[in-house]
């Protein structure tokens, strides 16, 4: 399984882990993963620690998620990025829309 999700202990944070490749193969699965969030969720975390590759489609998926969650109402954190992936996110200027850590 390349995509897995969990809630934080207090239920306020929704965490998505993407393992290996984050590309167009995950379009549907990714959208479904956040389609039914708990009402108490106040932020979303995408944990990239196991993500080796991303492509522009993944960037599109992240933007769609942001839009679907109210474009900033629920902050989205992109965390634990490898330097190269972080580089890609920053080239795409995602640091303006997401909290990259």
């Amino acid at each position, binding site marked *: 399984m390349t995509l897995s999700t969990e809630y934080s202990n207090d239920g306020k944070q929704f965490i998505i882990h993407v393992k290996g490749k984050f590309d167009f193969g995950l379009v549907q699965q990714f959208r479904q993963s956040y389609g039914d969030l708990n009402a108490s969720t106040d932020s979303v975390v995408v944990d990239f620690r196991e993500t080796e590759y991303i492509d522009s489609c993944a960037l599109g998926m992240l933007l769609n998620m942001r839009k679907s969650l109210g474009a900033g109402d629920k902050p989205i954190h992109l965390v634990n990025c*490898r330097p190269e992936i972080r580089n890609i996110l920053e080239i795409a200027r995602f640091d303006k829309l997401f909290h990259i850590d």
Partner: protein
Amino acid sequence: MRVLIVDDLDSNRLLLSDMVSGFGYQCLSVDDGESAIAAMPIFQPDIVLLDVLMPGRNGLDTAPILKDLAAGVHLPIIFITALDDQQTLINCLAAGGDDFISKPFASVVLEAKLRAHYRNRELNMSLAEKNKALAYHSSRVEREHQIVEHIFQNSLARNYLDYPNLHTYLSPMSMFNGDVLLAAPGPLGNMYIFLGDFTGHGLSAAVGALPISQTFFRMADEGAAVGDMVREMNRRLHELLPTDMFLAGLLLEISASGERVTYWNGGIPPAQLIRGNGKVSTALAPDHLALGIMSDSEFDSRVASLRVEHDDSLLLYTDGLIELPTAKGWLGIAGLQDILTQVTNMGELSQLVRQRLRHKPQRDDVSMAWLRCKPTGLQRDSRPVDLSPLGFEATFELQAAELKSVNPVNRIVSTLANIEGLGAYKSQIFIVLQEIYNNAVEHGILHLDSSLKQSSEGFEAYYQLYQQRLEALQDGWVRMKLQFQPKQRRLCIEVTDSGQGFCPIRSATAALDADTADTEYGRGLNLVRELSSHLSWRDNGRTVRCEMPLQRIDRRGD
């Protein structure tokens, strides 16, 4: 029982040796102090009957020497004396005598005395035996402790307690600490810290620290998620430990930026968050059961996170700290918070703790870790890696059947990643190759229109359409040519498709305008442009060529 009789009077010796032999005991008779001393190592008496007045060395001088020769075991000495003056009796006792017998010798009394004193000697001998065994055991235990300590030191050799933003204090109650404090950097510039407190202390508690530290260091190297790490620790301890033993543990990961703390706390007292302005509050509450109790299927590995600022500190500690005795009972969390408003670093805090410890004995291990929430400064080295000196060129041609069934980008990148030095750039290579290949397939071969991707619904529809058209594909091909040029440190990628060609200028312009990152297409091309030193089209847009420098590209804005 062996009885040594020392008397200068023949009649006394005869009488006494007859009596002693008559009781069934072995005896040896000598007639002066010197002979008695000489007989000691050979005869090894259990009791000595010693005359006080003898020519040469008298009984009072002989007694202490005989006692000394008794090899550390109590040797009862019964003085034979006709005298009943008190001073002589006192002198006899002072010289080490244990009892007296005087003439006329009463057989019953002599036998009773011999037995009573022999009992004492036997008791003393068994005590000496036990002392010897105890000394042997304690030296063995000490040796074994040394061995275990050695293993421990080796297993903790990697422990990064010197991490500059971490200050620790450990005060074990015994040689081995029931507390475990581990620190290790992750591959992403992140830092992991684990504080554990085993039930009990000493060797048995410390043994469990071995599997924990192994798991910790291995998974820290892998950059594992906090939840996965505690799950694995729990699984190992559940397997290994007896049911009445477990490990309260707090695992935290601080991100490279030093702003995000992710944690799992099972049974460790809540940490204290010390804000830059000196305000102290409780954080990282223990929401879970300790490690080693639950089976893997029951185990709850959910983590929580905390955002911190750059001048914040976190104090982690085991319950030994808040259970420190005070005048009113024990310190408690409120007492600790009170102390924390008065100190600014670990040195001051541990000094205060030591002061408190001086007054009353320590009951439990006390371990503390003071973590300053700053950027870790552990980011991986970004110097260019050495590349394989062998350049190569490879061409892949995919026909319709392969376009449908094979994702060439994955395969090519995983092959390239095995070449010396290229692995470090695999994410970069992947995205460039993927974008160029996808462009060729999506636009050149499948004639998909990127503008469809502008809405979220369209985004998905686009990829559905992509699937449909790909499945229906009859003709078409894509050719990918890779050139690895180690001298120039670059990888050239040339992709040609069988399509009609397209005008890349429109997308490229769109991409450049897309500085808000909100335009749904052209993003891929923009990424390629940023990651390559040269990007060009020819053949009416059917062939795209990209030269990719193999170096880490500076981030924008840095």
